[in-house]
């Protein structure tokens, strides 16, 4: 099994820097997700591992060996391409075993592996078809079959589900996890879809403009975002971010202020700053119609119906805020009130936008992130 280490890796095309100073260790056998919006460098990172792009500076190690100059064919990796990259003039079976033939494996071994892959991915009866006679889902499974028959240590997946419709995608996600459990390969999986990232990943590497923003478990990426970007990127609707000042044990937004519990004060006091970004997820704002003690007040602008839930958009001072509730009879113009759930808020440094950390009482959730 291979450990993959990026050491100060940069990649640029001419003057355009695509990846800057990437330090990342991918553990053997894990499912690592490279997540980010288009153009963030996630696909390039994957292609660097595959050897399809050359590293501009820095080092890439696989299994302890520096592989900067090792040809892709020698790296023993399999890859599923976004457009599947099936050879249109070959049958499904020929597509799947193409790499095995080049490796000059014995005929029986090739037949055995082909059968195993075809059975696992439910491609029975399609072996002699050409890719153009297959549906999108079938093509995607052929691409997967072609990748798994090689039995390589590393499986690279470049947005493998993005061309499937929503129903198939759910099914295919489960299939991918099943493949991982069968072959125990290291997965590196590129996606822009956070649901996919959360459900498939052991760990998520969130990227933005060529920089690694956070590398952690799906749980921590959601509950312990390393910085403002992560907090806003993960979750939908996106985390509410407020400009806030801290003074006299109170968090102040505009003219309104709310007291924080003692243990937060200690944490904020340590940071030595007074200005912060306060992050609260929409699903963690509990709106009240009656004013109580120690709350922020706002005015409802509009309500979005999602079917199972609804989103209430309201103005708090100058900031538009969204809260998610199960159901509501709130109408535009109504006053709403909410307090702060001390264990559901995130506080970020105003200058670095990094998370300042959490009070010790919450440390049962190991808060760890790799800073960049």
């Amino acid at each position, binding site marked *: 099994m291979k450990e993959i280490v990026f050491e100060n890796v940069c990649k640029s095309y001419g003057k355009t820097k695509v990846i800057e100073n990437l330090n990342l260790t991918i553990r053997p056998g894990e499912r690592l997700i490279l997540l980010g919006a288009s153009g963030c460098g996630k696909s390039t990172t994957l292609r660097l591992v595959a*050897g399809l792009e050359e590293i501009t500076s820095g080092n890439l190690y696989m299994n302890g060996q520096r592989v900067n100059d090792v040809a892709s*064919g020698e790296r023993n990796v*399999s890859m599923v*391409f976004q*457009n599947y*990259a099936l*050879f249109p003039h070959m049958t499904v079976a020929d597509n799947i075993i*193409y*790499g095995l033939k*080049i490796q000059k494996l014995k005929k029986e071994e090739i037949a055995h592996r082909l059968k195993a892959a075809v059975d696992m991915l439910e491609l029975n009866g399609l072996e002699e078809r050409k890719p153009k006679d297959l549906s999108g889902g079938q093509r995607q499974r052929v691409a997967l079959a072609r990748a798994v028959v090689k039995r390589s240590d590393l499986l690279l997946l470049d947005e493998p589900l993005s061309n499937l419709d929503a129903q198939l995608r759910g099914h295919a996600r489960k299939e991918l996890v099943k493949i991982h459990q069968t072959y125990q390969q290291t997965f590196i999986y590129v996606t822009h879809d956070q649901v996919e990232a959360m459900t498939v990943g052991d760990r998520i590497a969130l990227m933005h403009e060529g920089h690694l923003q956070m590398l952690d478990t799906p749980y921590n990426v959601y509950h312990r975002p390393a910085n403002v970007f992560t907090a806003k990127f993960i979750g939908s609707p996106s985390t509410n971010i407020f400009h806030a000042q801290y003074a006299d044990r109170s968090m102040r937004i505009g003219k309104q202020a709310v007291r924080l519990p003692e243990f937060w004060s200690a944490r904020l006091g340590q940071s030595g700053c007074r200005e912060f970004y306060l992050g609260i997820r929409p699903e963690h704002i509990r709106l009240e119609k009656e004013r109580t003690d120690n709350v922020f007040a706002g005015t409802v602008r509009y309500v979005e119906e999602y079917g199972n839930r609804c989103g209430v958009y309201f103005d708090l001072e100058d900031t538009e805020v969204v809260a998610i509730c199960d159901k509501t009879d709130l109408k535009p113009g109504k006053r709403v009130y909410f307090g702060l759930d001390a264990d559901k808020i995130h506080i970020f440094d105003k200058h670095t936008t990094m998370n300042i950390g959490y009070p010790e009482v919450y440390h049962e959730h190991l808060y760890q992130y790799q800073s960049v």
Partner: protein
Amino acid sequence: MRTDGQIKWHILLGGALVLSLMPIVFAISSSFKELSEAYGNVFSLIPQQPTLNNYLQVFSRLPLAQITANTFLIAVAVTIFKTVTGILAAYAFVYFDFRGKNVLYFILISTIFVPFTVTMIPNYLTVSQLGFRNNIIGVIMPQLSDATGIFLIRQAMRTIPRSLIEAARLDKAGHMRILADIVLPLVKPAVVSTSIMFFINSWNEYVWPVLILKDKENYTLPLALQLFISSEGGTDFTVAMAVSVITMIIPLALYIVFQRYIINTFTSSGIKG
């Protein structure tokens, strides 16, 4: 649904079709006429008294088998060389990254626009110096590669998604293997039609072979045809038409066999660019 505008175009195209088919029909019908009938009744399509005399005359006056073999040999050699070099160069231009690639390609393509008459004399001198005058090798030698072929094949290769090549690379396929297994099967129509174009061009070529070849037994078919329409050959134009028909048979047969690929390549390169 046909509109009046379309009918207008169809009449125009129909007229053009008749004009371009006329000489061929004329040649075939005249080649089966006696000279007197051909002169007396120029535009009748069906010979009144069909005869094979013209063909028999051609065979008796010329080493026709030898001449056809020469033409074929030259055309096949030129086609193979131009196609193979075209495929290799196109592959390099599409899939290799090297310094000066675009400049080199530009220079190469600009040679398409250099007229034959410009290179004719230098090529003639080179071939003479090397001692290949009056030899079909001399005809073949300056035609080992062709920028038009590189251009057409490159255009076809560019339409292959890059990920196919990358997938093959990850499977440890080397360049020759990628070319043979992936690229060639996918650009087959372009390669076939380009090579047919090379074949027919070479088959019909007149000026260059006439410069190089001196003896009748080294002649190609267009040169043989010239023998019957020049002042030395006399005015036996029905015999000349028989040679024309013989000259036409092989390219026409090729076209009929590979028609599918040819139409495919030229229409798609026209539409998709």
